[in-house]
């Protein structure tokens, strides 16, 4: 994270009128779509509670579920690898691809592989990773960065994508900015790569401990191409994505599409269990990724961030995200969930993120597994404040101490109110420019309420 962190990055993003328009329109549309399909379910709140309970059960017994998953996947003919951090995971995947003698891999959209920077690690080994999700392809071709969990190119509009495709893809001179035409151009570009790929790489939405089944949900069908066509399939899965039982999918597969794309059901749900002869990949590797997650699990309040199913409803609902966009969070996980996940996965590197929220509660309200994001934000603020060294952020600390002192005794509060009345004559007091740059300060009254009360009695 840059030295001044979120406030500075947000300040820059807010000046981009194209970004503001693209993002404002997109988030408003998805918000309305989600609200529509959630309203039609009379048992939505019960579903959310069920989702929360499943994730709580998962996290409290995580070690056991993971061992069971390993047993089930192995029994079904797959191989399980354990990766402590990004470096280990990248090494495991690169070695597996190199062992196949492949110089190219096709990828399903996956946040876990983005989190560990897999594409860069593969490139260092001379292996080209091809993103096949339309939005990921847009990001990759434009040498851009994702700004949304589900809609990585949400900051781009059709005109920008058309211009990019005309630059980057062959035979696109007559390309229009119709969504169907843009998708067709990407399809022509990708089809050939699907057919020649020997290794596919995916993430996982869920991994069922009971059966060893991995689940990937998507909208375009590219994911299913990646998980079925190549001879070798490698899945990188964060350890918190495990589910205890097959029946847990019933709840999750209702919660996820309605919360993420605002659909009753997502177009493609791929489920596979190990390997079978004559159908799909011949070799299947599951890489279980920790990369800081065990540390998050140790925090009793913060651990609920690991319940996230990456639906992105909190991003779309967030008044901060929907104005500044994803890049200001300087993490693959932006928005409210990013503001509680990134500082925990990368301790000390993202200390401004817990403040990137007005605590309006819109994120908590839409979260399909009821992660109390405002609660965790406040908890993480406390952790940052307690971890500050002497002299760090001295003005705030002094102000908080002073106000705490005044509030500890009504007589001191009365005195402070009298001082405020005097100070109130200063219209632009130093230290409050953050407020006064855009807003007037209220005029302190002639008498406080408690003075009035005392006089009236």
């Amino acid at each position, binding site marked *: 994270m840059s030295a001044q962190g979120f406030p500075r990055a947000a300040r820059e993003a807010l000046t981009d009128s194209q970004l503001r328009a693209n993002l404002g329109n997109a988030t408003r549309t998805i918000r309305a779509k989600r609200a529509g399909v959630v309203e039609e379910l009379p048992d939505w709140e019960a579903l959310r509670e069920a989702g929360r309970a499943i994730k709580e059960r998962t996290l409290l017994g995580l070690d056991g579920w993971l061992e069971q998953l390993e047993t089930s996947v192995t029994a079904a003919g797959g191989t399980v690898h354990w990766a402590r951090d990004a470096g280990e995971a990248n090494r495991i995947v690169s070695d597996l691809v190199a062992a196949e003698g492949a110089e190219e891999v096709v990828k399903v959209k996956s946040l876990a592989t983005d989190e560990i920077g897999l594409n860069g690690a593969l490139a260092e080994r001379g292996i080209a990773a091809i993103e096949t999700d339309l939005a990921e392809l847009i990001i990759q071709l434009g040498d851009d960065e994702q700004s949304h969990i589900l809609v990585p190119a949400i900051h781009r509009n059709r005109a920008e994508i058309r211009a990019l495709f005309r630059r980057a893809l062959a035979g696109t001179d007559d390309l229009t900015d119709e969504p169907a035409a843009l998708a067709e151009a990407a399809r022509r570009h990708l089809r050939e790569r699907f057919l020649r790929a020997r290794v596919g790489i995916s993430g996982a939405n869920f991994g069922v401990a009971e059966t060893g089944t991995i689940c990937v949900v998507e909208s375009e069908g590219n994911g299913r191409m990646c998980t079925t066509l190549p001879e070798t399939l490698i899945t990188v899965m964060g350890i918190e994505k495990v589910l205890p039982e097959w029946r847990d999918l019933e709840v999750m597969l209702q919660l996820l599409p309605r919360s993420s794309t605002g659909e009753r059901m997502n177009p493609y749900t791929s489920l596979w269990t190990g390997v079978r002869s004559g159908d799909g990949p011949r070799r299947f590797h599951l890489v279980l990724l920790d990369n800081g997650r065990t540390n998050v699990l140790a925090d009793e309040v913060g651990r609920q961030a690991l319940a996230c199913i990456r639906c992105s409803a909190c991003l779309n609902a967030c008044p901060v995200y929907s104005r500044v966009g994803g890049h200001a969070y300087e993490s693959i996980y932006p928005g409210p969930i990013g503001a509680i996940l990134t500082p925990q996965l990368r301790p000390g590197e993202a200390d401004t993120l817990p403040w990137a929220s*007005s605590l309006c*509660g819109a994120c908590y309200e839409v979260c399909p597994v009821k992660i109390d994001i405002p609660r965790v934000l406040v908890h993480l603020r406390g952790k940052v404040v307690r971890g500050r060294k002497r002299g760090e952020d001295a003005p705030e600390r002094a102000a908080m101490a002073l106000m*705490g002192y005044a509030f500890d005794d009504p007589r001191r509060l009365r005195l402070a109110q009298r001082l405020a009345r005097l100070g109130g004559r200063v219209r632009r007091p130093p230290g409050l420019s953050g407020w006064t740059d855009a807003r007037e300060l209220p005029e302190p009254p002639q008498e406080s309420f408690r003075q009035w009360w005392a006089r009236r009695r």
Partner: protein
Amino acid sequence: MRVSLFITCLADTLFPQVGRATVALLERLGCRVDFPEDQTCCGQMHFNSGYEEQARRLAERFTEVFAGAEVVVVPSASCAGMVREGFPHLGAPAPGPPVLELSEFLVDRLGVEDVGASFPHRVTYHPTCHSLRALKVGDRPLRLLRAVRGIDLVELPEADQCCGFGGTFAVKNADTSTAMLADKVRAVLDTRAEICAAGDASCLMHIGGGLARQRAGTRTLHLAEILAATE
């Protein structure tokens, strides 16, 4: 009914008219209002800023000061929310009496919607985040406002969007806060209302500060001030 008023540190210091209106309204409705003078602040600012120790001390003070109350009424959803939801997180003792936001008290406890107010002005109502999402007061404030004589109540577009206040957020992330405020002010002005009302003095200080900076000619009033107004 004997009612203990928790005025909030903000209204006490900067917006005493909110407290005076609350007292006038409650007394008109037959309540006996008491103001325990040892009260100061619920600790929300310290809690939300990460200063849990100071917040806990203030939470303990609150619970002690209001221990003998029959019911505590607060003209702020945010501070009532802090008491009901924040105190448990701090491990602070929960107050004995129920702690209710003004519209909750009027509609649920007193069972009134028509409080006998008269206010012949064009008004739009901003439902504050903590009233909507922490306390879930729903349409109680609107039911109270609709019963006011002479009022021309107009709907606020995208009303459930945060105004961008968020306590220290308004200063620490001033740019983002200002961008949120700009959209809220635009929505308020689009209604052509004279008054923007809400149930939290803090959010009103923010929206009002933005309106005043623009010399927009629309001012802010607390729900209590409208409900206290008579012919």
